[in-house]
């Protein structure tokens, strides 16, 4: 094995380790995006293969999580466009669940959060997942979503407001009163 081949193999190994390390985050992002564990895991595996095939375009030292999130996001959107895996979601059933929860005292159930997330538009859901859950700064989230930073801020703000209305009736009341004032 030549020195060049050896160096390339080492770089591949470093890349592979970094890629495998972000798989749990890719699964969380994909699950939030599409709401279906089976589809999410398919997306992640396909994203990993795409990332591996494109590894020479990855700049070492940059954020592997952000790079792979962008690949996953683009892959997800192209899958949606092909209508292969439309999310099987019943808004009426979700509404019933949310109304039931609003009448009860107690902590918020994660399943209700998932239902509420799926009621957001794909752009807002993605923005909230990147910034609110994934912890990306607005600038990096905007790069992943291929939009302007102002657009990303606006999407996050609107998503937060909508989610608050869905999940927190008290906050929703306050917001409505503020809007009236």
């Amino acid at each position, binding site marked *: 094995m030549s020195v060049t081949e050896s160096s390339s193999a080492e770089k*591949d190994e470093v890349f*592979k380790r970094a890629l*495998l390390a972000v*798989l*749990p*985050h890719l*699964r*969380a*992002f994909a*699950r*939030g995006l599409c709401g279906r564990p089976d589809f999410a*895991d398919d997306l992640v*595996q396909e994203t*990993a*293969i795409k990332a*591996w*095939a494109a590894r020479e375009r990855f700049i070492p030292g940059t954020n592997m999580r952000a790079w792979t999130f962008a690949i996953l996001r683009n892959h997800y959107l192209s899958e949606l466009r092909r209508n292969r895996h439309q999310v099987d979601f019943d808004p009426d059933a979700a509404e019933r669940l949310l109304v039931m929860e609003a009448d009860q005292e107690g902590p*918020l159930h*994660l399943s209700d*959060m*998932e239902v*509420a*997330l799926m009621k957001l538009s794909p752009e807002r859901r993605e923005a*909230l*997942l990147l910034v*609110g*859950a*994934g912890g990306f700064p607005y600038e990096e989230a905007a790069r992943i979503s291929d939009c302007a930073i102002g657009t990303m801020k606006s999407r996050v703000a609107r998503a*937060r407001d909508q*989610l*608050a209305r869905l*999940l*927190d009736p008290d*906050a929703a009341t306050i917001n409505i009163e503020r809007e009236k004032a």
Partner: protein
Amino acid sequence: MRSIESSLAEAIGSRALDALANWKETGRCKMEFALSQPPGMDDRKRTPDKSAAARDSTEPGWAEGLRQLYDSVVHEPLPDSFDDLLKKLDRAKNERD
């Protein structure tokens, strides 16, 4: 005998003089404090817009739920379907080569 008016005027005058002296002293102290501070240490500028702690205290309950949702998946063990991923990666590499 001094009239009530003159006594009152004297009293008000002395109070006004005292107030003026206090105001000058206070102003002098403030000026000395400001001059003794290094640039960029102005109190008005030192007040943070909104600290992370303050944001946390005003953060709605669902924001934590959203992070929990994300973290719960992050901390899940990878399903068995991922076992073959390394082989798939190698296969993809060989196909490309």
